[in-house]
C-alpha cells in the first residue's frame, strides 16, 4: 500500500482519471466526493489546517503514476469543501484555504470537554497554553491552528462560557473559563 508519510493512501490514488477533472456531471460529483473525503482525512491525521492551492501539496500529486491535479481542479475541490462548511477561503484571491475537519462548533465542544476533563472550570489560561501546554498534550487541541482556536473560543464567549482577555501583545491573550 502506497503511503504519504504515515498516511495510508487509498488504492484509487493510482487511478489516473482521479487526477483529471471529469466533465460529466455524475462522474464529477463522485470524484469530488472522493477528493473531499481524502483531503479531510489527510489533514486530520497530519494536523494540517491550511492548504495553499498555488503551492506544492503532497496529496495533490502522485509521482508513481506521474499525475498531479491542475490548479483548476484544486480550486474546484477546495471550493466544494468550502460550500459544505468544511473549509474557508482565508482571502479573496483564494490563495489560502482553512481546512475544518472539525467544524467550529465541534472544536468548541472539544474545548469544553478539555476544560471539564482537566478541572479547569474556573481557571485562567493563555491561548498558547491551550495550544501547546502540558494539559492539551495528546488531545486534538494540541498544535491547533490559532485562527481556528480563536474562532472556537469566540463562539464560546458568545455563549457566555468564557471571557477573552486582551494582553499587551498577541501572546498574552488569555481566557477565563466560567462553565
Amino acid at each position, binding site marked *: 500500500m502506497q503511503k504519504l508519510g504515515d498516511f495510508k493512501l*487509498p*488504492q*484509487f490514488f*493510482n*487511478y*489516473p*482519471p482521479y*487526477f*483529471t477533472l*471529469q*466533465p*460529466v456531471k*455524475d*462522474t464529477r460529483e*463522485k*470524484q469530488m466526493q*472522493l477528493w473531499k*473525503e*481524502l483531503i479531510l*482525512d489527510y489533514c486530520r491525521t497530519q494536523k494540517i489546517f491550511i492548504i495553499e492551492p498555488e503551492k506544492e501539496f503532497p496529496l495533490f500529486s502522485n509521482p508513481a503514476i*506521474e*499525475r498531479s491535479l491542475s490548479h483548476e481542479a484544486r480550486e474546484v475541490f477546495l471550493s466544494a469543501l468550502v460550500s459544505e462548511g468544511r473549509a474557508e477561503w482565508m482571502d479573496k484571491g483564494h490563495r489560502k484555504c482553512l481546512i475544518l475537519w472539525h467544524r467550529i462548533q465541534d472544536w468548541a465542544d472539544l474545548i469544553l470537554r478539555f476544560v471539564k476533563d482537566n478541572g479547569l472550570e474556573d481557571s485562567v489560561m493563555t491561548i498558547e497554553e491551550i495550544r501547546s501546554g502540558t494539559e492539551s498534550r495528546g488531545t486534538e487541541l494540541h498544535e491547533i491552528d490559532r485562527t481556528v482556536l480563536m474562532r472556537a473560543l469566540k463562539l464560546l464567549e458568545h455563549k457566555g462560557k468564557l471571557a477573552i482577555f486582551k494582553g499587551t501583545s498577541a501572546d498574552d491573550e488569555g481566557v477565563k473559563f466560567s462553565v
Partner: protein
Amino acid sequence: MAGGKWLPTAELTSSGRPVLHPGEVECSLLSSVDLDCEENPSFPLFKSGLLILTTHRLLWIPDTTGSSSASAIPLSAISHIFSTKKWIKSMFASPRVRFQVSSNAQGRVDDKGSRLTVITLVLRGKSDPDSFLAKFWEAWRGRAWESSGPSGSESGKFGPGDVGGSSAGGGLRMPVVGVSGILRKEQEMWESTDKSLQDAFQDLNALMSKAKEMVLLAEKMRQKLLSGSNNQASSANDEEMGSKEEMQDWLLSVGIASPVTKESAGALYHQQLSRQLADFVKIPLERAGGMINLIDIYCLFNRARGTELISPEDLLLACSLWGKFDVPVMLRKFDSGVMVIQNKSHSDEEVFSRIKVLVLKPDALRTGISASDAAITLGIAPAMAKEHLLTAESKGLLCRDVSPDGFRFYINLFQEINLDMVKDHGTYSAWITATFASR
C-alpha cells in the same frame, strides 16, 4: 392498388427511387400527374403522382409514401404520341398529353399486344407541357431500349446487379484458362478501352454519347476482374490481388448511371437527390461499420456522379430531408459538431459494448485507451472513434485522463469506488489486480 392489372409494376428502392434498367437514364420529372384511360371504364384512377420519364419507360410513382405500387409504361409499347391540341378550353383546364399504347386483349399495357389504347397524362403541377412533350418525343424516338437488348419489355424484373454475366456477352467470349487467359482478356480490354477513349475525345458530343458506353465498360471490367480473381485466387500472387481489389474499388465507385440533376428534376431536385443519396450510401456505410463521415460521403458521392457534381449545401439539404422519408439512414450531429451518416439500425449500445470489452482488458485497465486504439478495434477512423469515446464518456461508461502523455480513456470506476471497502468481484478489484500486479 388495382393498377397492376392494367400497367406493369415498376420496382422501387427502399427509399422510393425507381430501380432503373441497365443503360436507362432519367430525362424528366413532373409532380402531380394523373394517368387516365378514357376508353377503359375499369381503368383505375392514377391520381396525383410523380411521373418520371426515362429513356426506356414512363414511370408513375404515387405520392403517398409507403405504398410500393409504382407503375411503368415501356416506351416500346407506345405507338403514337398525339401533339397537344390548342383550343380555348385548354387555357383553363390542366394541360394534357395523350399517347397511344398497345395492349393485350384484356386491356393490359403490353408492347406485344395487338389492341391500341389511348392514355392521357393530366399535368396538374406547375410544369411546361411543351418541353415535356419534346423530351417525351425525343426519348420515344431515341429507341434506347433497342440498343440494350431484349431487356426493355420485361419491366420491373431487372435489378441493377443484373448487368454482369448475361449482358456482358459483347463478343469477348473466350474460355478463362489460367493466368494467361486473364492476361489476354485484359490486353483485349485495354485495346478496346484505348479505342473508346480516342473516339470519345474526338469532340464533346461524341464524349456525351460515349458516356454510357464508358460506364458499361467499367461495369464489364469489374465483372471480369471479379470472375478472374475467383477462378485464379490460388495462383495469383498477393500483390496482383491487391491491385485488382483496388481496381475493383475504383470501378465500383464509377457507377451512378443516371444521377439526379437540377435539369432533369427541377423543383423536385433535392427530394429526388435525397432519395438517390439514401440508396447510394448503403454500401459505403456497410464497409465503414454503420457510420460514415459526411465529408467522406461527399467525396464518394461526387466521384460516383462523375461530372454532375453537387455542392456541399445540396448534400446537407438532401441529408436533412431524410427525416421526411422512410429511409433506413439518418444524419447525426455529434456534440462536437462533427456530422455523420449512420444506419438507423446502428446502435450506440453495440459500439459501447465493444468499447467496454476493449477497456476491460488488463493492459487497458492499467494504461487506458487512446482514440487510435479504439479506431483499430472498431475498424473506423480515429476522429470517429473519438466521437464514440466521448459519447461513451457522457453516458458514464468511461472517464478521461488528460496528462502530458495525451488524452486517454479509462473504464469509469468512480461509481464503484468506496473509501472504506473494495468489493471482491467488481471492476474496481479487477483494476486493482491489473494495476498493482505489475508493480
